[in-house]
């Protein structure tokens, strides 16, 4: 601990234990605790306590004071816990009327239990529990007693203490603890209703995950199986998912868990399939009365159960330990659920008709089913499955009743299916299925680009951008796209009243243009093709919102990087025009992006940055594209230095940081030209240095392009760029965030609040 903090600490402890002194707020206490944690990581708690008796006084004092604020009390308990994690002999508390205090006390209990077991039973097997230290014995008795209690809050608290214990401690004694307490836990499952089911599931999964139980289960698997069969649908899903995620677990339990998880979808399929459906899902899953009851009880219980099930399966899908995956049945189920929502499903039973009525237009279930359908695209499947999925997605995209959030999900799922669709072997194109689908998709996309909700127009543009990014080179895709009005509509959206949509339109048209797709290739569109750069430049100069301007800068940077025709034709002119607009922008992210573009230009002119990794293969220095003096003159000409030097003193530090990096890169590059290393110091230096303060105040040093390369070199040398870089690397409020500043603030606030109270007469 630094001396200044040591000096302030006694005064602060005095403030904390004095109930008349209002403590700043809980944020400060929380931060104080953070700081103590850091301190105890660096030095022994014992040494800390010996060096600061005020801390011991604080901890013993809080137990005696009557009207102490709960905030300070819980802080002190947590502080005690922090010390207890290292040192012995702390008193503990539990059962305070305040739950916050009680939970801090529970954590402390766990610390104390773990500590006493470690200290008292070192080297002993300690499995019976009767030779445990008195302290541990007392805690265990207390927990056992609470588990038998009829009051749910006490049971919950006991379960939470156990969950924390098994989560934190993985010593052999925890097994003995479980052996002793598991009958009590199992008893909870026999009560009706099962108390604290949520905490119970947490505990069971936590115990199952503990490595201590990998060899012998201590009746754990039986308890889990029992829980699977008697918990209600709300809690059984998370338990089943948790079991399926376990790395080691008996196969029978796994199967049972998966059946439980699939139950709701099996019910749905059974209620709707005309013929006996595909094998897999219905085989072993018997009709479960509780599941059917939940599905039929009310709209919200039905929707809730289906959403939860779909979400659990979605989570399970990518896991390596997932059970054998009935892809076809699950796909069938997802499609059926979507059909139930849009009213196109055919019920096969009274349950089915009921579900039709309940789920019709249920946006929540639609979204969950679309998410799940998207996830299913990752599994391999036969061609007809893909057709089936794409058909239902197209239906969803076309349906006039689809809500904006549903449409967004439908676009996402469609993209997932398209990009993962099986390609014809040996053929670079998209296979037989996709071109037909695209021909049907683009008219729908056209309609969605004209949707009255901005959310839909935006999602449609994002979809278009993604699709052309991946498939811009595919002939089938290009053909279908150019035959539609989609490019033209995307371009019209550059004038959309909603700034988000304008930004997405910029990105989309920029992407299309990179691929030569922003306008049909026929001669009558020649003008349209040429004017896109000017149109985007106009947006950069005049749009009142930052998003479209930022999007334009990203497009321009990409164009420069990829050698887009508009950028490559006259690169210097292109860079000069863009930098001029970007450097004046009020949005610092546009300015930062401007510097990014400048960096790309530098790299293209002088060669890429040198790798600093010592293990990297040293490539021969790429010869720069042109002589240095000429390159420097070009940089001056495009106004790069004006921009960079002013940006160095920008009040927004990412801009200053970026400029600093850029100039360091440049200096590094120049240094490799030995002939120029010693140059400079000529008559221009003084004038340039005089111009620097003006840069600091945000004025342009000189009209762009007027600087001489020698002057720029002199300027580069005169700047302490490394120093600036390290200053900029610190957060702008690092001084105010220091522990010393925190202690000062807490003391000052105490005094301040006292004065304030006099106001309330």
């Amino acid at each position, binding site marked *: 601990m630094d001396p200044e903090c040591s000096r302030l600490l006694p005064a602060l402890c005095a403030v904390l234990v004095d109930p008349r002194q209002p403590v700043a*707020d*809980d*944020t400060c206490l929380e*931060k104080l605790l953070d700081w103590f944690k850091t301190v105890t990581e660096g030095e022994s708690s014992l040494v800390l306590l010996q060096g600061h008796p005020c801390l011991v006084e604080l901890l013993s004092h809080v137990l005696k004071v009557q009207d102490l*604020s709960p*905030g300070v009390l*819980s802080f002190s308990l947590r502080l005690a816990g922090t010390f207890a994690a290292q040192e012995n002999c702390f008193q503990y508390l539990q059962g305070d*009327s*305040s*739950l*916050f*205090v009680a*939970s*801090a006390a529970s954590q402390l209990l766990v610390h104390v239990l773990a500590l006493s077991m470690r200290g008292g039973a070192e080297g002993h097997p300690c499995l019976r529990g009767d030779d445990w230290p008195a302290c541990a014995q007392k805690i265990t008795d207390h927990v056992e007693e609470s588990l038998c209690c009829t009051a749910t*809050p006490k049971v*919950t*608290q006991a379960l*939470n203490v156990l969950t924390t214990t098994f989560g934190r401690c993985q010593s052999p004694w925890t097994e003995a603890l479980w052996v002793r307490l598991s009958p009590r836990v199992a008893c909870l499952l026999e009560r009706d209703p099962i108390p*604290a089911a*949520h905490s119970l599931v947490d505990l069971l999964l936590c115990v199952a995950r503990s490595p201590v139980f990998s060899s012998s289960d201590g009746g754990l698997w039986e308890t889990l199986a029992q829980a699977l069969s008697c918990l209600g649908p709300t809690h059984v899903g998370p338990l089943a998912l948790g079991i399926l995620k376990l790395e080691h677990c008996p196969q029978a339990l796994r199967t049972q868990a998966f059946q439980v998880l699939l139950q709701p979808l099996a019910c749905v399929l059974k209620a709707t399939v005309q013929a006996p459906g595909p094998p897999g899902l219905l085989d072993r899953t018997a009709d479960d009365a509780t599941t059917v009851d939940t599905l039929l009880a009310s709209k*919200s219980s039905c929707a809730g159960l289906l*959403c*939860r099930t779909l*979400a659990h399966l979605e989570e399970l899908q990518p896991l390596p330990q997932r059970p054998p995956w009935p892809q076809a049945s699950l796909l069938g189920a997802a499609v059926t659920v979507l059909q139930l929502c849009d009213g196109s499903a055919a019920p096969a039973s009274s349950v089915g008709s009921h579900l039709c009525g309940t789920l019709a237009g249920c946006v*929540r279930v639609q*979204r*969950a089913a679309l998410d799940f359908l998207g996830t299913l695209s990752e599994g391999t499947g036969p061609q007809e499955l893909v057709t089936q999925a794409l058909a239902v997605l197209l239906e969803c995209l076309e349906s006039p009743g689809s809500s*904006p*959030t549903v449409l*967004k999900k439908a676009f996402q799922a469609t993209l997932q299916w398209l990009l993962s669709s099986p390609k014809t072997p040996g053929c670079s194109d998209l296979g037989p299925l996709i071109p037909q689908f695209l021909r049907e998709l683009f008219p729908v996309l056209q309609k969605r680009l004209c949707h009255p909700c901005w959310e839909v127009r*935006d999602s449609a543009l994002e979809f278009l951008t993604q699709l052309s990014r991946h498939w811009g080179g595919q002939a089938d895709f290009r053909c279908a796209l150019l035959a539609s009005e989609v490019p033209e509509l995307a371009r019209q959206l550059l004038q959309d009243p909603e700034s*988000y949509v304008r930004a997405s339109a910029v990105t989309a048209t920029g992407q299309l243009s990179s691929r030569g797709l922003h306008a049909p290739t026929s001669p009558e569109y020649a003008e349209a093709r040429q004017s896109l750069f000017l149109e985007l430049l106009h947006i950069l100069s005049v749009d*009142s919102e*930052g998003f479209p301007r930022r999007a334009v800068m990203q497009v321009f940077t990409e164009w420069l990087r990829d050698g887009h025709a508009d950028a490559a034709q006259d690169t210097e002119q292109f860079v000069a025009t863009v930098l001029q607009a970007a450097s004046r922008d*009020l949005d610092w992210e546009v300015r930062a992006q401007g510097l990014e573009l400048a960096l790309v230009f530098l790299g293209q002119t002088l060669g890429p940055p040198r790798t600093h990794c010592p293990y990297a293969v040293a490539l021969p220095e790429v010869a720069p594209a042109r002589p240095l003096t000429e390159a420097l003159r070009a940089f001056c000409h495009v106004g790069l230095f004006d921009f960079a030097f002013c940006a160095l003193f920008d*009040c*927004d*530090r*990412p801009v200053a940081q970026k400029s600093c990096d850029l100039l360091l890169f440049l200096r590094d590059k120049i240094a490799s030209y030995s002939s120029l290393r010693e140059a400079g110091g000529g008559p221009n230096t003084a004038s340039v240095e005089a111009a620097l303060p003006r840069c600091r*105040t*945000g*004025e342009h040093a000189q009209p762009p392009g007027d600087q001489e390369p020698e002057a720029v070199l002199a300027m580069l040398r005169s700047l302490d760029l490394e120093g600036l870089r390290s200053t900029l690397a610190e*957060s*702008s*409020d*690092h001084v*105010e*965030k220091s522990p010393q*500043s*925190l202690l000062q603030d807490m003391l*000052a*606030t105490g*005094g*301040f*609040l006292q004065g*304030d*109270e*006099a106001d*309330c*007469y």
Partner: protein
Amino acid sequence: MPEIRVTPLGAGQDVGRSCILVSIAGKNVMLDCGMHMGFNDDRRFPDFSYITQNGRLTDFLDCVIISHFHLDHCGALPYFSEMVGYDGPIYMTHPTQAICPILLEDYRKIAVDKKGEANFFTSQMIKDCMKKVVAVHLHQTVQVDDELEIKAYYAGHVLGAAMFQIKVGSESVVYTGDYNMTPDRHLGAAWIDKCRPNLLITESTYATTIRDSKRCRERDFLKKVHETVERGGKVLIPVFALGRAQELCILLETFWERMNLKVPIYFSTGLTEKANHYYKLFIPWTNQKIRKTFVQRNMFEFKHIKAFDRAFADNPGPMVVFATPGMLHAGQSLQIFRKWAGNEKNMVIMPGYCVQGTVGHKILSGQRKLEMEGRQVVSPDPVLGWQGRGAPPGGNRCPHPVASAAGGQDAGGVHVIQRTRGRQGHHAAGGPGRAGERAAGAWRGQEDGVPEAEDRAGAPGQLLHAGQWRDGDAAHEPQHPRRHLTGTAEAGNGAGAAPRGQEASAPARHPDHEGQRECRDSLWRGETKDGNFRLVSSEQALKELGLAEHQLRFTCRVHLHDTRKEQEMALRVYSHLKSVLKDHCVQHLPDGSVTVESILIQAAAPSEDPGTKVLLVSWTYQDEELGSFLTSLLKKGLPQAPS
């Protein structure tokens, strides 16, 4: 019996990250989703682990409701929806929907700007989050699903702020968010139907603070600004982009116009235009005066307030600058502060709350030495001539008018305001709920054996059963503050779940018919034995009920250099006022205090300085004119010899 459970996932005893989970009859609603400016780690957001630990929260949560666009109420929304993964509907009013993304974007930019944070929500996430928003109109009953409905009410406070009633079957909860009881220059006062919620969750940050009169604060504000620019100094007012800043702008604009001042006033570039745009777009949300005069003159088109360019900060001569962010922790305001702090002619005014860990916080807590970046030490004493304690007109959170007296017939007495030692947070209060005309009564306090509500972010919440709601059209300028509050607080011991997610439950109670009366401004309708209604005056009604009317009192402190004892001082005040206010009844009471009509003046001696005396002046809402006049009179000092 259906149960209402309240689990604060943030706020509670702390300013920031307002986020309350309410469960009514199996429906789960999240009220606000704010961020905390004081932390840089996960704690900057509410603790969602409580609802995410088992399964996905979209399946658990039925909807999210955002009360208004301030970041402590909506700042965690993109994190919650795009990073934690909530996919359900988010409800807010139309103006909030329009302004919220701007502030979120501003916040993101500042966070990244300050530290170059990478692990933060992106622009794309803000947009994706906004796509999940469903905008609602005031008084529109929105059916979230078959069982859950919500309804928004006008809350004042900031443009688009709303209070929400959440209803499941016959159970209901009212959540106020931040709200204003009195209209200000640009917004009206909060208004709600007479509903009888089972539970009221109300903002109470300033519930225990008796604030100076608004007029005093405004006059003080203008005086300080004027004095500073007159002597050639610069004034920095750190503000948040949109919200209370507009109130200050109108105030300054009007003052500049009246005084014919030429000193430039600047506002962070881009934001004035934006604010202007949104206030124009949502003109029905502003107050009556602005709506009326809008056709002739748009109050938000300022003549004197110009866009700020960072180069202006170095211009010589006086100026006033509104700059973001409001807590002086990054960006433009901090840069200007560093630049100007060294000159004792300059001044900074902190209109809003500042969290620990910011320069703003240090200034507000009165620290005299600030260590700035680069080890520069600034003594802000002369610079910060006007500190935030008497925050300028209308602080950034809900200023509760404070009742000094209250009547009620509950056996345990009535807590209109319960002191919470200047602590902060939302307070849950439950109560009997019955519809319509029976909305009246008072909050019963903790002596009824009401257990404490719990919060997860801080210490246990102390119940606060405060609040005064105006009954009438929001557009009316209130002549008399009318208020009704109903309810018996009840938020019970909940089960302690995980350490960072605790809950309180409030079993819904059936209405306690006894002691439910209503007190209206001029009429009182009460049920007589034969079930008929009677019309009586409010005075009569109060008398029959044995109630005392709530009184609003404003307070102000006047510092005078005087070495005499308090009693002697009071006597001099008495003589002075007696001579000046010939038409008023001036009295010197036995306890040493002086009264003029409802105005009460007491002399006190602050312990630290024997040479200074403080006059504590308090007056009722009705005597605002006289009170203000008296305060200004006393500020001029007392005549040398008693007249």
